[in-house]
């Protein structure tokens, strides 16, 4: 049994016939071939699969593709705009906010969501917001610094984009 699911992903509309049980993370990765979002745990603990559903970060390993029908999804592939990295992406490079890179897309999508709501978050708020995601490489310190870098350089990057 399949069902028709239509989802706008990173601004492009996709319609696929899929099994009702298909997870959103598998829809994104296997049906659409967008492999930037990762699968890591199945239990909503690690956050490697975080994407935005409409404007909210969700763990795509515990969302059905069918639940995204008629809605929009944003993934890590959409962070770079017109050849210009999002300040969050640049911050992760500048502050060594990643090592193996596996958790990084989820971290960056969550950080972008935070900065859109609070452009100048304190370290404690950054740690709170990222506490639903796991990283085994960095000990989080440089991820926090990366988000701070993005906050401090938001203006430069907006200028570059225009």
């Amino acid at each position: 049994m399949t069902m028709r699911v239509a989802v706008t992903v990173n601004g492009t509309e996709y319609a696929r016939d899929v099994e009702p049980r298909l997870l959103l993370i598998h829809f994104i990765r296997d049906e659409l071939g967008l492999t930037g979002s990762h699968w890591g745990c199945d239990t909503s603990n690690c956050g490697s699969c975080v994407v935005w559903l409409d404007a909210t970060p969700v763990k795509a390993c515990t969302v059905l593709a069918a639940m995204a029908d008629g809605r929009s999804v944003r993934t890590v592939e959409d962070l770079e705009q017109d050849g210009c990295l999002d300040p969050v992406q640049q911050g992760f490079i500048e502050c060594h906010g990643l090592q193996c890179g596996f958790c990084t897309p989820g971290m960056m999508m969550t950080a972008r969501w935070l900065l859109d709501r609070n452009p100048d978050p304190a370290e404690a708020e950054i740690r709170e917001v990222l506490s639903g995601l796991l990283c085994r490489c960095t000990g989080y310190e440089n991820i926090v610094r990366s988000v701070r870098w993005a906050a401090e350089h938001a203006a430069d990057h907006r200028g570059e984009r225009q």
Partner: protein
Amino acid sequence: MTAGFGRMLRKEDQRFVRGMGTYVDDVHLPGMLYGAVLRSPHPHARIASIDTVAAEAHPKVKAVITGETLAGRDLAWMPTLAGDRQAVLATDKVRFQGQEVAFVVAEDHYAARDALELIDVEYEPLPAVADARRALDADAPVVRDDLDLTGNHIFDWESGDAERTDRVFRDAEVTVSQDMLYPRVHPAPLETCGIVADFSKVSGKLTVWATTQAPHAHRTLYSLVVGLPEHKIRVISPDIGGGFGNKVPIYPGYLCAIAGSMITGRPVKWVEDRSENLMSTCFARDFHMRGELAASRDGTIRAVRVTVLADHGAFNGAAQPTKYPAGFFGVFTGSYDLEAAHCKVTAVYTNKAPGGVAYSCSFRITEAVYLVERMVDVLAFELNIDPAELRMRNLLRPEQFPYTCQTGWTYDSGDYPRTLRLAMDMAGYEDLRKEQATERARGHLTGIGVSFFTEAVGAGPRKHMDILGIGMADGVELRVHPTGTAVLRISVQTQGQGHETTFAQIVAEELGLSPDDVEVVHGDTDQTPFGLGTYGSRSTPVSGAATAIVARKVRERARIVAAAMLEVDPEDLEWEGGRWSVKGDPDSGRTVAEIAWAAHSNLELPDGIEGQLDATCVYNPPNLTYPFGAYICVVDVDPGTGKVDVRRFIAVDDCGVRINPMIVEGQVHGGLADGIGMALMESIAFDADGNCLVGSFMDYLLPTSLECPSWELGATVTPSPHHPIGAKGVGESATVGSPPAVVNAVIDALRPYGVRHADMPLTPAQVWRAIQGRPFRTDLAIS
């Protein structure tokens, strides 16, 4: 630009921040099928029958593989890296919960999982042994009857001088003893283990994309196990989502996927889920230790004696050099000047998953450092001496290096007191102690924990260290193109350590090139020279050394070519500022790029130089490197709940010369988080029947951004005298050194209650119980 060593942003980040990395699960081949493993629900059971008819009838299923199928190809068992054998798919009985029983190959992942439900296995459950301390009992169930064993004993291994140690203990003024457990933990990289196997019946070539830290070792093993000639096997290790030792061994699922591809003629992908990762792949530790120290009343530590019961699970799958069945636990003498030392390790089989050496452990130095650093604190407790002061009194002195310890390891270099002093200054140690006294008077539990570690990394001298008979030396190849850019091919495999950046920096430093002009190729056995891979912090000590040496070979070839260009004798040239120039005439200098062009041109070269600058090197390290460090942890404990908050963590690491300090610090950060995880929350526990109680990240807790403080890092630099650039390994230092600092801090906080020890993980429940005077065993379910 001729920047070599120093802070440099990572090259690999450009693809990772765009979501453009290529991990094994991102590999998609035309016609690819998907595998899934059926696992045993029983810790110990005889298999009466396996009925696969219904599964095979599933419309999307292409093959169902059992142990019987594999036995027909002589693949039902595989050798382990410790010289034992492990069932690929169980034929006779299952020996741990989660063991591989059958493998389904189907058109998609979901169908493969569905078909697992259709396989009917009839088990006859057997009594299981889950408690290592019961494994040697006369009435304990025998795990390995396939080897005709009548008990669960694997090996006894000793190190040091028992008689001399006993003598020191007999006449010592003070002795202390403490039982302690280093619980079974798991590396749990965020990317689980997986493979895409593609066997071509036409060419007879097997290509695998696999999550492996050691692609060349895997190729050799696949050849030996599967029976394919080695030149017909290509192992590609693309981007790896963390390894920490989890991705060193070969797992049954890999061989099932290979068999599945050989049977179906199509590529087969298998990626384990998180439960499979935690329950069946290489765990770490599970060392039940008794430590003893002999000392003088003034606090001079004279000898250490250790007995260990090592739980290796159902198969001896510990991955370490052949001659070291207990890994490098022999460095349990730590950082101190002792008169004598002895340890005895007894290893046993249990009905638990196989493994033991993983999780950034430097071949069990993690256990050794925990043992000795906990014991020093126990002695400090007994003698009522400040633990930092006690360490300072006993640390090796700089003039004693190179120092051969009582178990025969020769520490290459160190200035330990300087490093500990720096950590104490950064922490404000004396003030912290005053604050602690004030807080205690007010009923607040603050603890200050100190640890000092010495690591032994960079295996190894090939005469002493091998994996399955293959000496642990690494090859590199360096080519310099006509236009002066270079490509370096290395055998070691990054899992996030940033090799594409740091190895380019080594070449750049040696040849005066820009690191941007050096491409590092790795992770593909068809494109790189042989070497044994990345684990035990060996990349920089071994392949890093090989890289410096091969670059120097290129530099010497460049000197001969430059001499021909300048029409002088090579002896008249000097290397200065990244150029070969005539002595006293810097303007005559030629860069390596200019020389490379000439080396490819029709310039007449002296006899013996055919042209080009390319070189190769195989590096056989003369000794391990011995990084060290001093860590101080400050915790606050809630006496009402037992909850521990890590307030501060000060880490001073000495890993010799730092190629890229930014990356070194990142490595240390990650290891410190590991330490908090192991000390406070991580444990793979079992119930008395052998049921694994940890099947997901809901049960196996990892530290998050909230449990980790903002790390305070310091550095001292004592170069390794035998490494070409003076570097030592650092990837595991913090994982090795930090757990005892955290535990020592928590126990220190509980001083008002007279607590001398409690086993990891120091969960709120365990701390609360310790306060009540009855800490429990953390490896078994609470009964």
